Every structure is written in C-alpha cells, then in structure tokens.
C-alpha cells in the first residue's frame, strides 16, 4: 500500500491511497484502502489520513474517521488522536500497521505500531526527509 496526504497553501487538505492488497489474498478481498473513513479520509476541519496495515482491523475501527472524530468532538490534537488510534485502538486489536496524517495547519504525524514503515515528508522549506525503519 502507498499513500499521500497534503495541506496546500490555501489550507485545503487531501488524501490518496493505492494498493495491491495482501500477498495471496482471497480473490475479491477489499481492505481499508478504498474504504473512506478507514484507510483514506480528508476533511479541512480536522485532518487528511492515509493508512497501511491489517486492513480488516482498520475498517472495523474506522481508523481514519476515528482520528477526525477525536479531533472534532474531544478537541484532541492530530498528534494525540492519531497516536491513540494507532497504538491503542489498532495496536491492541491485531491492527498492525500505521498511517500518515496532516492537519489544516500543516502539522504531519506518521505513527506506526509495527516493525517498520516506508515514509517521507516535505514542507515549504523543501526539507525532504525519508525514513524506512
């Protein structure tokens, strides 16, 4: 699975996620990637999210929408909300994996609860950073 989230100069957010699924998956099996609110979500009032991991659990816990809800209803920061969803909701329920997310102020978070995640980020200062572990 691959994905991207962005906050543009107008403060608009967007998310995009694409996947081949899981090796040897059952024909017709769909994971969280194309399920809006699970593996892909964007709303200018809260955040944009792109996930990667054990799709069935991301779907059942509506991972991306849960982060937005915690921000909208509990007033949590993106960092607090995303970390809780990944480390608690997903991490403690066989939902290994992670996600990238950005809020309307351009703050980026990339929590994951598994061994490694391929990820990168850049901002207006052209600080290109990539991490693979």
């Amino acid at each position, binding site marked *: *699975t*691959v994905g*991207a989230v*962005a*906050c*543009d*100069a107008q403060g*608009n957010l*967007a*998310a*995009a*996620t*694409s*996947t*081949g*699924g*899981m*090796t*040897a*998956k*059952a*024909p*017709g099996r*769909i*994971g*969280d990637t*194309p*399920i*809006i609110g699970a*593996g892909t979500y*964007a*709303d*200018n009032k809260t955040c*944009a999210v*792109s996930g*990667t*991991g054990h*799709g069935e659990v991301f779907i059942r816990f509506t991972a991306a929408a849960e982060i937005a809800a915690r921000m909208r209803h509990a007033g949590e920061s993106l960092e607090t909300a995303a970390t809780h969803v990944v480390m608690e909701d997903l991490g403690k329920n066989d939902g*290994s*994996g992670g*996600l*990238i997310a*950005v809020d309307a102020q*351009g703050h*980026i978070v*990339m929590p*994951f609860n*598994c*061994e*490694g*995640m*391929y*990820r*990168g*980020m850049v*901002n*207006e200062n052209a600080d290109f950073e*990539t991490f*693979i*572990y």
Partner: protein
Amino acid sequence: MTRFSLAVHGGAGTINKATLTPELEVRYHEGLRTALRAGHAILKDGGSAMDAVTAAVCALEDEPLFNAGRGAVFTSEGVQEMDAAVMDGKTREAGAVGGIFGPRNPILAARAVMESTEHVMLIGPNALQVARNADLPFEEAPYFFTQSRWDALQSTLAMRATGQVDDDPARRHG
C-alpha cells in the same frame, strides 16, 4: 513564504535486515523522494493538495518496490486486483475503485470516479469504463509483473499448503 506540507508512505511491514541491502535501502529512499518531489513541485507553485497527493501516489505506483500499481502483489489465484481512493478535504468529495486491473495508475481511476460520476466507489467493468472515458493509460499484465511479488506469492502458498502458521503480521499489510 506560503505554508504547505506533504507526507507519503510506501507501506508498512517487517523490514527484513537480511534482504535490505545498502543498494536496496538507497532505492527505497529514492522512491520516496521521487514521490515527494512530484507533490512538492505542485504545492510550491500554489497547486492543490488533491493534485499533489495524486501526483505523489502516481510516482509510488510507478515504482515496483512498493505494493501498488506496478509493484502490486498477487492474489491466491495468481492475478492482481488493485484498490485506490482519494478524498478532497475542501469538499469532502471522494472517489474509490476496488478490485480493478488495467489502469497504469489506479489512483487516477479513483479520481475519475470522484470527478466524473456522482458515486464514491465503483468496482468491476464500469470502474474500468470510467477510467477509459477519462482517457487514462492502461497496461497489460507484463507491465505489472515483478518476480519478487511472484516469488512472495509462491512462498506464501507453499507455506499454506504445508499448514505452516503465517505469523508475520506484515504479510497482512497492504
């Protein structure tokens, strides 16, 4: 200076130190940077977040190292089924495709669903028809084939055939 930011991921998984050679490590970093450059070029010119994330994911789909597009894994029947989605935070419009094969960049097929239909998600032949109507490029099976993904399928099937437990959580990652 206008503020903007972009993040990308190439998936989560157990990074096998034994197979992660220095050369491969460089290729992974380069694959991620190519995606960042594609999105950054749009944002720095005042372009939209939707255009930036679409361009970044196209770059990742074109890189066989990552499990999407050209690097997609195989199902238990030895074929590839791809899923993709986009969502625009400004309008909350969204587009998604599931279980498709053919468009070089499934993310563009998802965006075509968002921009040219009233639906959020399409599967099956009509999802492909929407992609064709949007003049998206299609590719044949050899374009999407990678030996490493085919080998991963064979080893997974062999493991299942012997009843061995597949305890690597990363194998369930997209």
